[in-house]
């Protein structure tokens, strides 16, 4: 076991982890951050994408011990103070998701893309998210969503760029069976 200290979505954690524990398993199983999911075992699908020290990483390719002393943001830390991020809002408005399994990773990858390139063309978005697989949407609405969010973020929304979630229905799952 190895002791690590990390900040995840703004909270500090000190934990013992096995040296071989992957960041995604630490997040899901030890911290209960089940918004980040596992889709493959070859780092191809991107479903587990989180931010480590501000950069998008596939958390199945990072050992938890490598995150020691680092700052991690997961999908659960993207909406600030009950406010959806423009990227989340755009995915919702433009139907950029269906089953939603790839969505957290897709949003995290898209945020990193827009940080690097605040005004991406359609082709640049397509190339920028090619490490994240979606089986439902055919990507077109995801591409639109990333471009809309980028425009909104360029528009200089004050502070952290968060917007009102007023138009987003906040109904919880009708069949929630308890999470980790």
């Amino acid at each position, binding site marked *: 076991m190895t002791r690590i200290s990390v900040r995840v979505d703004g909270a500090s954690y000190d934990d013992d982890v096995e040296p071989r524990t992957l960041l995604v398993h630490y997040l899901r199983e030890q911290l209960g951050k089940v918004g980040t999911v596992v889709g493959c075992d070859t780092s191809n699908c991107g479903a587990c994408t989180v931010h480590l020290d501000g950069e998008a990483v596939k958390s199945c390719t990072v050992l938890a011990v490598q995150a020691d002393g680092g700052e991690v943001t997961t999908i659960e830390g993207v909406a600030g103070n009950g406010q959806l991020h423009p990227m989340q809002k755009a995915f919702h408005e433009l139907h950029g998701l*269906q089953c*939603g399994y790839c969505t*957290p990773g897709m949003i995290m990858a898209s945020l990193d893309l827009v940080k690097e390139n605040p005004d991406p063309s359609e082709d640049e978005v397509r190339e920028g998210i*090619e490490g994240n697989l979606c089986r439902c949407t055919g*990507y077109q609405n995801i591409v639109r969503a990333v471009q809309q969010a980028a425009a909104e973020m360029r528009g200089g929304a004050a502070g952290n760029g968060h917007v009102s979630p007023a138009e987003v229905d906040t109904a919880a799952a009708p069949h929630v069976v308890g999470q980790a």
Partner: protein
Amino acid sequence: MTAVEERTGTPAPEKEIGKARRRKEDARLITGRTTWTDNMVLPGMLHLAVVRSPVAHARITSVDVSAVREAPGVIAVFTGRDLAEEQGSLPCAWPVTPEMVNPGHPSIAVDQVNHVGEAVAVIVARSKTAAQDAVELADIDYEPLPVVLDMEKAVEDGADLVHDHLESNTSYHFVFDAGEMGTGSDTEQAFADADVVVSRRLIQQRLIPAFMEPRSVVVQPQGDNYTMWSATQVPHILRVMAAMVTGIPEHKLRVVAPDVGGGFGGKLQVNPEEILCLLIARRLGKPVKWTETRSESLMTAHHGRDQIQYVDVAADREGNLKGLRVRLLADMGAYLRLITPGVPALGAFMYPGIYKFPAYRFECDGVFTNKVPTDAYRGAGRPEATFAIERIMDELAVELGMDPLELRRKNWIQASEFPFTTVAGLAYDSGDYESATQQALELLGYDELRAEQQRRRESGDRVQLGIGISTFTEMCGLAPSRVLGSLSFGAGGWEHAAIRMLPTGKVEVVTGSTPHGQGHETAWSQLVADSLGVPFEDVEVLHGDTAISSRGLDTYGSRSLVVGGSAVVKAADKVIAKARKIAAHLLEASEDDLEFEGGKFSVRGTPGTGLGIQEIALAVFAAHNYPEGIEPSIDAEATFDPENFSFPHGTHLCAMEVDTETGFVKIRKYACVDDVGTIVNPLIVEGQVHGGLAQGIAQALYEEAVYDADGNLTTGTFVDYLVPSAADLPHFDTGNTVHSAPGNPIGAKGVGEAGCIASTPAVVNAALDAVRHLGVADIRMPLTPERVWRAIHQGGDGGDRATAGSNAYGGAQTETTAGVSTDASSLGGDR
């Protein structure tokens, strides 16, 4: 303005139906607050790992798991022999002929393995990693048996057998002959009399549904009751089948499908691991969980397609169709899973497409091989059929020297001819193929692209341009129970719904149709909001839990809105009828004098007064002033069983650039116009079309499950099995015509499979259209650069190991290709 309004300029309608409502489901999915099955953690929960066969065909000579038992964290190990007595065969619910041979399918192999990945032992440990670590310690000896992979060889006399206790590798022989069935004339005569006969051997390569959420199952025993959470498309069917397999009484088994991350038919299954979890939870009295790795998923979850199609079409010189003959070899894999044999049989009725054939004969052999079984995959039987007819129509046009669109126009059913009974006996209810086609041509910019194509041909441009056409229909909304019965399907096609008015005026809707990304919570809310006149936000849709939704037949075959949505509308009608009785009592009026409009009952002639249905719900709860003889509730249940299938249709057009020097293909433009009947939510319809297009294009260009000569899946990870990324797919231009279906109260036809069915032939036809003048007559899917290059420069269909030869049916053909290939990953270098 909604997104769709911004794009189309269409003003929002006042009714909920037709409105581009953003989805209720999204809130939890975009914030990471979803409940996937793998999120479940229960006190004392144990984890399963499966020891799987590394060989495709072998007798198990010894199983030594003593080292596994000693491994850290391991609680128990079960071999096939340990569980032999309590495991029944996994179900096959579609015996397409009375003579069909079903070898049975144990959840875990006992004496023999028949495909790579088959379970041979199950390890139960305190943690998932402990269970997985111990897998390596299992010591199992195998005595190899001959491996059967090639369908054409498998049906030859004297072929090696997959199941050596059977007489052959043929499970069933299914024939539909329109002449004998009385719906058409004699096919052999039609071919004998025809001026022109064109024949092709087409390969429907093996595909993997590749849902994004790996399969996962958790079973919690509570005394002799069991709750199973599973990432399944079919919780209701799973409950019935799991009860039958394990002997656990159905009323003591609750199945819950929480949020489910994709399905595409791939989760329309009763999985061995679901049964194993039940058996082991029963043995140990503890909750158990199994979640697959992606490699396990690709290797052991069922595959789709995998057919060889021999297609003959007969016509006169003017292009009038005279007859169609289809013979199939359909790969069942090693076992018959839930609907394995039914997939090709369902397709039998779709081969004539939208055309008026006077004669038609279909025959199919279901063939066993040492591969993972095939079963439902998006479209299930109908994409295969549409591919064959739309490919052969192009070949016939070439043979006749006709424009492929003109040939189609000459033979398709005219708008004035609906309803039209096809040679396959289906009654197509509505549509207008010409109008959808016209719109699609405009969306694509057809004439300009044809002119550019001509210029590129004349100048001998390295990059050639082709335009592919695919006009299609499909049988959707599965479906009339009596018809499914006549096709030997084990279940009906009805769907169930319940609506409960709550005291606060909120409305609970329970649906038997279980979504996995289709947006039922939103669309069903729109249906109920319009029917009951209540706000969209006041409706809550419950699904996917057999304790809440006691009856249902789940989600597949684009049946949800057509059948499940119709059940909801029918239940809403019953709610209104009950509320009307109570309103009449409270308003001291006759029921016949009451009008119901905008959620309000009012006495005729006095609009603006009266009682809202939500107010009545509270009055019913109090029941202080209540009509005699009426129960104090406004709840209703309804079941809808359609009279007929529904028949969406459309025209898809693909403009494709082919680099003749490298073989690389690039979709320049893709346009389609679909008629899915009444559109409840245009945002969802558009999204469903996009997703289907991606999967259909993926079959044409990227995806193939490939086995090596020993039966190992060589496309066993996402490195090798090429699910396309955003960078691999084009922008889609989509449109709709609307001819509402007459057979259900919504007028919906189904949309989930349209894109997947129509796009594959459009893309392949486009590539061929680009290079046909270079002497190319066929290219095998997926159109990898290597195959395209070979087809251009070496002839044939570009398929590897192409050899001339005869086949089981002996029919006319251009090439024969072995069912084993090795180059599916040649586009994979960039990921």
